[in-house]
């Protein structure tokens, strides 16, 4: 289905992504983990074609994505929705309008200027919001919502695109643990119920372990791990993060239950 072949991105002398090879055969929920600057975001941005690859190819169902230009490229971006860490909504517009932005690829600029969305699309947008549990926020401005709600609006915008793939770039990094859980569960539900592929950059191991069917580890632009969560031992995790013996998974956790675990309490006492 999706095949990434020797994908490389260089910024001047630094190589952000170094010959990445990933192959996805069936809809999967994939978590990409690694330190800041490991190239996770760059990889996702190249998949969405927000930035161009220096070398290598992305193939989706036989179509070369890296070669797309103009309208064909925008059509791919519709099929491959993206969710951002800072939500990237239009803050002064209401929630439903933000969700309707998912249909922009099908609309002319003139229709957009006069806000002429068909009634069926508006109804569909509110149904998607209802599915994510925020339908009653529909007429409010996006900026009036909490972070977790805004991220769910962003997911609704992505769903409005009816994409085959949803990319999520650190979707929960700006959220508190409770909202993080809601957002991750929404992404999981979208994967399970709609059969869409979800690729999420995550910076906590336990989130990747808990929600993803496949985990990819990146370090300094290279893919150093690719497997099921069960294969992700503490040793492997230390290797991905380049950490020493004092590294503990609980230290990066955002789960509320982690606080009850024995080793964290001990760590807190020592600190």
């Amino acid at each position, binding site marked *: 289905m999706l095949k990434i072949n020797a994908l490389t991105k260089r910024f001047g002398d630094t190589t952000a992504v170094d010959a990445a090879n990933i192959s996805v055969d069936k809809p999967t929920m994939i978590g990409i983990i690694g330190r800041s600057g490991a190239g996770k975001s760059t990889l996702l941005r190249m998949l969405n074609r927000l930035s161009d690859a220096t070398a290598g190819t992305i193939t989706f169902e036989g179509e070369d994505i890296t070669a797309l230009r103009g309208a064909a490229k925008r059509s791919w971006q519709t099929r491959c929705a993206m969710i951002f860490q800072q939500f990237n909504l239009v803050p002064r517009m209401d929630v439903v309008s933000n969700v309707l932005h998912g249909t922009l690829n099908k609309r002319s600029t003139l229709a957009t200027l006069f*806000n002429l969305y068909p009634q069926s699309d508006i109804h569909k947008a509110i149904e998607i919001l*209802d599915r994510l549990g925020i*339908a009653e926020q529909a007429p409010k401005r996006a900026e009036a919502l909490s972070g977790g709600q805004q991220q769910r609006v962003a997911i609704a915008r992505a769903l409005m695109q009816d994409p085959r793939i949803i990319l999520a770039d650190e979707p929960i990094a700006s959220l508190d643990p409770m909202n993080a859980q809601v957002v991750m569960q929404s992404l999981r539900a979208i994967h399970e119920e709609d059969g869409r592929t979800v690729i999420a950059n995550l910076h906590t191991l336990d989130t990747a372990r808990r929600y993803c069917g496949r985990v990819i580890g990146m370090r300094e632009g290279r893919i150093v791990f690719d497997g099921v969560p069960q294969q992700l031992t503490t040793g492997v995790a230390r290797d991905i993060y380049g950490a020493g013996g004092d590294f503990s998974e609980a230290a990066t956790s955002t789960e509320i239950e982690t606080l009850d675990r024995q080793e964290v309490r001990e760590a807190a006492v020592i600190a």
Partner: protein
Amino acid sequence: MADISLGGAPQNVGSIQSHYMAQVQRSRLYGGLTLLVFIVLMVSGFNVADDRNAGGFWDGLHQIGDYPADVLSEAWEKRTDLPGLLAKYFPALVETINIAAVSTLIGAIGGLFLSLLGTRGLAKWPRLIPLFRRISDVMRAVPEIVIALVLIFVLGGGPVPAMIAIAIHTAGALGKMFSEVAENADLKPVEGLTSTGATWSQCMLLGVLPQVAPNYVSYTLLRFEINIRASAILGFVGAGGLGYELRNAMAWGPGRFDEAGAIFILLFGTIVFFDQVSSRYRNRLTEGQGQ
């Protein structure tokens, strides 16, 4: 539906949909009315202007290219004289640039004081902020050409009245732009310097100016471009420089269009040149700092 609706949905979807649709219909109605009013105003305003015009817009429209065509054809016929004319009018160009440069410099210094004295949090006399703000309002509200006409009447024609007129307008305009930048300046360094017993001018010099300098210089360069155009225009009312020569060449009518052509070339060349130079510097100042 998924079991992820943790927010809960007390209202049912149908009523939310119909409420939102009603809201959309209302905003579309308002939008349509606004558009209608806009079109009506455009059409009626155009008709009023056209009626009061000496000629008619539609009658004159096809003649719009006649004058430039005359100028261009005559200038082309006498193209061999062009280098000589360019050399002849070069001193006038220098005069125009001189007026622009001096007035920008004086205006920027004036604007600097007006902005620092008129910005909340920085002003030396907080109670006088409205006064300094109104002063800069008045200075930029009066068009350069009005000040220049008054001064030419008083002082006689020449570059000095033009310089003063442009400097006054520049001080007012830059005072406004500068104070917007200064409002966003971080006040912590100022507080730190005040705590050491520094005077107000020392605080401004060391605490504020380093922060705002790139933006100030960039706005000043933009103003310099504008002032070159302004000083050329002021020549038309007798303030010397290139504009004065251009008016003479054009007012004489056919026969001296080659001179008008040469002056246009000088003016366009200069404006493009300073545009390019200053936009390059402004980009460097606002984006790549220290590189």
